[in-house]
């Protein structure tokens, strides 16, 4: 009998591993559609960012209540995985609670601790569901959160509650079977939380309890496999992507825009500045700015997969706060949607389907509303940079499409002719000095 369940377990895990690996590969190749970029700056600082910001959740704590609730889920998720490891080993080896004989007296306290964490997870998920669906926290209700995005957010929370419920039911029935002296359920000592739940299952026949215990066990582990696969389709992918994303985020001051060295030698030629070394023409297929995801950097695309749609960026965006169409979160969601569309073969990068990121997903009106204030960048708990994408799209409009707003074109012209963004004569630039001397003398 155990051999059958071992085989079934191995097959199920194999199938899920296959599909998860396929999705991981899909995501990896989608990110690889972006421009490769040299990673500069010291590793130590990058690792520090990973430790403090991804692992340590430092930036979450700007908002205390969601930070504490999120921490409960996070710690629960990470530590309960130790119990999941036991379940997986049991599944492969046909054992039952394989860690119990190894940990002896520590086993019951450890499982009790996990049960407390599970309660914490359930508590947080319930509060989050209330925040999403009853209190209607404003940042979770923007127009881009309709449909799938809102469903996804709720589903993740519900799945987590159900999975935790399965662990607790499994432990409760296990304890009852231990009390009955069922030989397949060795004595472990009592577990803190599930021992309160014993009355729920009291009076059931031992055979029924075994069925419930086994069902909860299978439900939990298959649920976890399923959830792991689901995560790769969900905004919840941030649990993994936060780590590479914080590692690769830029280390220069937020005010520094990405340089554009590809055009520098051309500008030097135009100015008659002697070139050091050879003229380096822009690489093949080089575009001035970004029209589609292949023009964005791989980090931009990684950002899109790391976004969990919390909306802290949009809640701080001055344009969005004053009713403009721009929402930094939507910029990230659109980038991700476009990547998935291309990855799935529903569109391509050659515009055969007459579709591009700029125009079909993100409109000019959105990017033109940005004040480049960096509030979105500052707000993001996992160092996503929506501003970088916006500025690259603006470059495309200005340098490839001649699609900048008329008043910007006038400003460009002023700069070219008067060396100032306004229509003032360069000769008048120093007039203030005369005015100052006139007052004082």
């Amino acid at each position, binding site marked *: 009998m155990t051999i059958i369940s071992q085989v079934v377990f191995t097959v199920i895990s194999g199938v899920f591993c296959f599909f998860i690996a396929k999705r991981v590969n899909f995501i990896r190749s989608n990110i690889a559609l972006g421009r490769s970029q040299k990673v500069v700056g010291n590793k130590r600082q990058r690792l520090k960012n990973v430790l403090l910001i991804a692992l340590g959740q430092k930036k979450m704590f700007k908002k205390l209540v969601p930070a504490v609730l999120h921490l409960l889920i996070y710690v629960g998720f990470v530590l309960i995985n130790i119990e999941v490891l036991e379940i997986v080993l049991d599944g492969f080896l046909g054992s039952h609670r394989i860690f119990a004989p190894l940990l002896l007296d520590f086993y019951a306290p450890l499982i009790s601790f996990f049960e407390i964490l599970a309660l914490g997870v359930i508590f947080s998920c319930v509060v989050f569901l209330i925040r999403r669906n009853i209190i209607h926290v404003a940042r979770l209700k923007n127009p881009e959160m309709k449909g799938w995005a809102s469903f996804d957010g709720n589903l993740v929370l519900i799945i987590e509650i159900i999975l935790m419920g399965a662990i607790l039911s499994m432990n409760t029935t296990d304890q009852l079977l231990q009390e009955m002296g069922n030989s397949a359920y060795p004595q472990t000592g009592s577990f803190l939380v599930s021992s309160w739940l014993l009355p729920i299952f009291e009076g059931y026949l031992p055979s029924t309890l075994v069925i419930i215990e086994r069902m909860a066990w299978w439900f939990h582990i298959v649920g976890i496999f399923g959830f792991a696969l689901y995560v790769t389709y969900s905004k919840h992918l941030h649990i993994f992507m936060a780590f590479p994303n914080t590692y690769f985020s830029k280390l220069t001051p937020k*005010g520094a825009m990405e340089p554009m060295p590809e055009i520098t030698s051309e500008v030097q030629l135009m100015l008659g*500045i002697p070139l050091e070394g050879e003229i380096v023409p822009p690489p093949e297929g080089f575009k001035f700015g970004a029209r589609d995801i292949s023009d964005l950097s791989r980090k931009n695309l990684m950002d899109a997969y790391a976004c969990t749609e919390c909306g802290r960026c949009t809640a701080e965006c001055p344009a969005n706060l*004053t009713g403009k169409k721009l929402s930094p979160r939507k910029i990230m969601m659109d980038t991700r949607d476009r990547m998935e569309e291309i990855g799935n073969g529903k569109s391509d990068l050659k515009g055969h389907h007459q579709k591009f990121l700029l125009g079909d997903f993100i409109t000019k009106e959105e990017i*033109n509303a940005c*004040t480049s204030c960096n509030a979105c960048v*500052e707000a993001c708990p996992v160092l996503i940079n929506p501003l970088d994408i916006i500025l690259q799209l603006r470059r495309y409009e200005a340098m490839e499409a001649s699609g900048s707003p008329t008043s910007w074109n006038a400003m460009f012209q002023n700069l*070219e002719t008067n060396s100032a963004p306004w229509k*003032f004569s360069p000769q008048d*630039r120093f007039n203030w000095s005369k*005015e100052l001397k006139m007052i004082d003398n």
Partner: protein
Amino acid sequence: MIDIKIPTVAALAAEGKVPEILFWVGCAGSFDERYKNVTKAFVKILNKVRVDFAVLGPEETCTGDPARRAGNDFLFQMQAMSNIQVLNGYGIKTIVTACPHCFNTLKNEYPELGGNYQVFHHSTYLQQLIDEGKVIQKAEEVAFIGRKITFHDSCYLGRANNIYEAPRKVLEALDAELVEMKRCKTKGLCCGAGGGQMFKEAEKGNKEVNIERTEEALETKADTIAVACPFCMTMMSDGIKNKEKEGSVQVRDLAELIAESEGL
């Protein structure tokens, strides 16, 4: 009355001298009627502390910031490289500017094009002068006691370059009461003019950003909104006009406040 000197770098170069500090005035500082007053105030302070400074005068041109934020990197690099040629030609090492946009561009975006300078924003520079006791000797100033000042963080000083304390230290030195707006420092709300917005109409929405920010500033009941950026100056002043509060609330740059307390 001290004799105001405004040497140009070119004039000094003719004598074979290089100024210790270049005061980068910026386009708003040169042309904007209201903001020219900030330039003048800062020059008076520089004169008072007898620092060896100069300006580029007619040789100065836009840093290229608005072109870059609006997406025209060609134009930005043209501006930047011709400025760098001038600056390097004169052997400039240290630059101070009152404009956070110029500051950010000179400090963070010129090095990749060959322009390496030590760049200060005037808030940091003024704080240094105060720390060194060169301006604001305590006994003199009484004008600010009992007044309430709120500071509006500019994005290109704050989030872009992590300068939050220097302007506040400058204001604290005035002995006025410094009150914070609800959104301040890392969470400070933009005035609405950055990223090229200064040079275009706002996109369709239900409110102007500067009105939102002005309302927040007015909630503090401060009589003075201190700013440290020419764009913020324009946006906040417009906001105050819109709310018809010109009679009771002033928008002033840090340099103007220091110059005022110094009786300059």
